[in-house]
């Protein structure tokens, strides 16, 4: 299967992906598939940051990357925790959508600072929920640093659900950050969904 085909299949499955899937299945996804996913993500990030396109164009490329390869519903579930369980399916869909825009903008800007550099995928090892695929960001004039992707099988496909930069888990950072935002809105999830895309 060519890369394009594989990509469109992944995208199609992502679009169909149900919101109910919660726990990862038994390791039907192999370490090679987990690595292949991260290779693909990294290739697209490298392409985006070195494309020389406008910030708006790069950020929408990042949104596509999150759409195709990230388990945004699972990340949403981890960020909201018990609130996720209490949310209606409409709220779940709304939150996941808002989160995707928020993450793409916020981290798209950060990754844009990596322009002129590249990310190299290193190795993959099994972890409790799936795989940890480690990579190295090599930037001109700076010491290389570690970027690790946590990958799990979601609906039969490998998807990443966390990015850990020099030990800093973006999932954990955002769980705290968005938790504070929800508290500030007195737990009003609809308000948070409306505000989140504008918060980055």
């Amino acid at each position, binding site marked *: 299967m060519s890369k394009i085909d594989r990509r469109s299949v992944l995208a199609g499955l992502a679009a169909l992906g149900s919101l*109910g899937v*919660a*726990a*990862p299945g038994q390791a039907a996804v192999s370490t090679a598939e987990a690595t292949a996913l991260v290779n693909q993500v990294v290739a697209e990030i490298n392409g985006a940051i070195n494309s020389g396109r406008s910030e708006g164009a790069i950020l929408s490329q990042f949104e596509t990357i999150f759409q195709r390869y990230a*388990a945004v519903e*699972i*990340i949403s*579930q*981890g*960020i909201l*925790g*018990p609130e996720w*369980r209490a949310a209606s399916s409409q709220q779940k869909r709304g939150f996941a959508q808002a989160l995707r825009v928020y993450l793409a903008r916020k981290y798209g*800007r*950060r990754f844009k*600072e990596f322009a002129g550099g590249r990310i190299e995928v290193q190795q993959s090892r099994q*972890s*409790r*929920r799936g795989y*940890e695929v480690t990579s190295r960001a090599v930037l001109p*004039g700076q*010491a290389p640093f*570690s970027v*690790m992707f*946590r990958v*799990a099988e979601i609906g039969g496909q490998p998807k990443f*659900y*966390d990015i*850990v930069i*020099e*030990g*800093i*888990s973006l*999932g*954990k*950072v955002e*769980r*705290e*950050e*968005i938790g*504070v*935002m929800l508290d*500030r809105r007195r737990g009003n999830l609809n308000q948070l969904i409306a505000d989140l895309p504008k*918060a980055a």
Partner: protein
Amino acid sequence: MTPRLAIPVLLAAATLLSACATPDTPTEVFDPYEQTNRQIHQFNVGLDRALVRPTSNAYGTVIPQPVRRSVSNFANNLDTPRFVVNDILQGNVLDAGHNTMRFLVNSTLGLAGLFDPATSFGLETRRTGFGETLFVWGNEEGAYVELPVFGPSNQRDAVGTVVDLVSNPISSIFSSGEQWIPPTANVADRLGARYEFADTVDGLLYESADSYTAARSLYLQNRRFELTGGVDDEFAFDPFEGFDDE
């Protein structure tokens, strides 16, 4: 460290360490002094807004990038003997040799450390400090503390920071009239870093929903990663937790 300073500093360090608070069960964030920490955080953010950010902006705008890089190289080179001392205290012979070679290369070929040819020979910077030495010696990290000016830390690293400040062996080669050179180089290096990563730091300090918890989370995760070289699976982001039944 000058002998005059060594004894009081080590005594103070020992006292602080023995007073390290420990949680009853291992927790990811142990912050019993949050109220005080938040006040210090307010002070630090104010200091950044009023002084550090504008100064770093001026420094970055006025001083061209190659000169800033040389200042940074110079500061790093002056720090390297201190890394060697800590490598030895940690029993890390490999890094002690690595950093000694690095210091010799950069002090000579690198023109007193203004340039960094060592990195291109595979002798990249390997920073360490007394905080890491205390970790290697088996001390617990203690409670999270935010230090005035220095920012996020823990009790163990707070002791390390104080010891590092007064224990650079390089200061003995400077005459009493030149003692200002190493700390000034360090401050300039910090200002350069504040300028270089301005977007990231501004994002953290001024755009986070709660910059105190954001800074605490970043510091604790990154520091543990630096010291252990890995991420503790126990504290990993686990969005499946509590949803296993579905």
